């Protein structure tokens, strides 16, 4: 059984369809990356899974249990198994709490009174390679990288099965970024965590994700193993995204395949293939609507795929 099964998930705010039917699965211990431009709905997907954003249609099965639309009260015990890492590391830490209180807050929220919170704080800090005296610090005394690690520690406190991580390396220096990714890779192996990671940094995806899904206008347009997608992207949008990745080598000329124009408005979704107007490879027949096709575990929504 998959740990997480998202099926036809739809979210709209008024008449803005932010998510137009998202379907994917995450197996226990697997890392799944959601990739796409700003506004493609990545963050809404994980917020909707965690019950922090509305989802009007579809289903979210977590460990076999339907969790879409659960009340806050019914959701709370499940949050033990599902932790969230927010995008802004410092902003997601309450400025008035010490690091000790911040990382042990999950125990208090879950009413786990039998725990020795001091000992837990120590254990969690060492898990994320922070010295134990950090327990007495406040968020403003941390660097961006340290605040990230506190975020990881807090997400790990209740030994979840799934971590939902929104841009876990955004704003980090490259020398620190590697440290955080190593830490997450290591924890995943030791604790058997599954993760859904949102990022637009493709270099990060390559090193952490087993499988990835590419989102455009609130839909998945391609999905497959990370290797397959990097080696042979089939959807023109994926191809454009992957090509927009300048290499740290002055002799490697960028062979960028440019998207045409700007993302269309969600209020006025294009007819037929929604990517057609921006697609450098569009054909006449692309005014038809592509359906989601799966071939050898590789999902694709395109009428004129690249070969």
């Amino acid at each position, binding site marked *: 059984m998959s740990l997480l099964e998202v099926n036809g998930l739809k979210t709209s705010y008024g008449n803005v369809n932010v998510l137009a039917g998202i379907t994917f699965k995450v197996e226990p211990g697997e890392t799944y990356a959601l990739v796409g431009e700003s506004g493609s709905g990545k963050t809404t997907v994980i917020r909707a899974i965690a019950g922090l954003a509305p989802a009007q249609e579809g289903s979210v099965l977590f460990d076999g249990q339907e969790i879409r639309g659960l009340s806050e009260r019914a959701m709370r015990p499940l949050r033990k198994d599902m932790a969230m890492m927010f995008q802004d590391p410092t902003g997601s830490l309450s400025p008035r709490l010490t690091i000790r209180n911040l990382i042990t807050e999950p125990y208090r929220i879950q009413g786990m009174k039998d725990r020795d919170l001091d000992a837990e704080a120590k254990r969690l800090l060492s898990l994320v390679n922070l010295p134990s005296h950090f327990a007495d610090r406040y968020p403003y005394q941390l660097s961006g990288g340290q605040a990230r690690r506190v975020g990881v520690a807090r997400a790990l406190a209740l030994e979840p099965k799934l971590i939902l991580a929104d841009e876990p390396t955004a704003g980090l220096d490259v020398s620190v970024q590697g440290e955080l990714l190593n830490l997450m890779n290591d924890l995943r192996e030791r604790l058997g965590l599954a993760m859904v990671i949102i990022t637009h940094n493709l270099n990060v995806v390559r090193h952490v994700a087993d499988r990835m899904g590419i989102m455009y206008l609130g839909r998945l347009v391609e999905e497959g193993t990370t290797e397959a997608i990097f080696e042979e992207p089939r959807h023109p949008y994926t191809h454009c995204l992957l090509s*927009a990745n*300048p290499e740290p080598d002055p002799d490697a000329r960028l062979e960028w395949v440019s998207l045409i124009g700007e993302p269309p408005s969600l209020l006025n979704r294009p007819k037929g293939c929604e990517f057609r107007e921006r697609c450098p490879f569009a054909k006449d027949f692309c005014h038809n609507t592509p359906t989601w096709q799966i071939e050898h575990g590789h999902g694709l929504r395109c009428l004129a795929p690249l070969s």
Partner: protein
Amino acid sequence: MSDSLLEIDRLSVDYETARGDLKALRDITFDVKKGEIVGIVGESGCGKSTLISSILRLTAPNTRFREGEVRFKGQDLLTLPERKMRDLRGADISIVFQDPMQTHNPVLSVGRQMVDIQHRSSASRADKRRRAAQMLGAVGIPDPEARLDQFPHEFSGGMRQRIAIAMALISEPSLLIADEPTTALDATLEVQVIERLRELQQEYNCAILFISHHLGVIAELCDRVVVMYAGAVVESGEVREIFHNPKHPYTRRLIDCDPGHIKERARVLPTIPGEVPDLANLPQGCIFQDRCDQAMPRCAGDVPPLTTLKVGHQAACWLNQMEDPV
């Protein structure tokens, strides 16, 4: 020195704080030639922002210029009267800031802001508006005439950054400072913005001081690179030299850390353990010694000077003077 547009000469800048003087910049020396794109690479706390605000002289009240000069077209900006300085900013020296969502006035139309920024010109309002539309077109905004009447919130982040570039170039400056102009943007928009910058640089022949921590973007765009660490220049030179033949351990480690290099899935990514030293309490000797895996006893003694290793390549590391005593 006649082809140098901007010369930063032994610039040292302190911030006076309750903990004592924070030595934010120490002995910074590099230059930007006419029409050249120079990249500044460095991580948090390396002094990039202090450097920019020193060039523009938009520094915090507790800033003290301890030593050195910032010469623009041969004139020291640090001693220039404020009025003269104001004539330069936004005219001959322009800047594009990091966050395109916060650089525009939200309650004025883009056209109004682009006309206002031409306040030095004596052209008629209609001419200024035409010029604004022409610049919008030049940065690739479709239908520029009509879009002048729209407000910043009606544009996407990438478009807003391109509008910021259009506004910075409208006065045809000889120096454009771009402070991490693509950090807040998606990869596709990032590439779009750097391509546009390169085209415009060729068209207007302005020099660009491009600040970024994205090595891929630096490699793609820049002619020369200055690598900064904890308030000092540790290495500088032509972009090929720096990327293919780095001569400072920090530069080498920084390039190693960039996951863009590593094509195969890596179990363990390289990092630089340790932290940037406290600038209010500087260690003796080399600033990087604590994190350097090649540190020697000598590194704890004197600060290694920035030495020319060959034409177009300088580094500040004792290792180079051992291998190759000049």
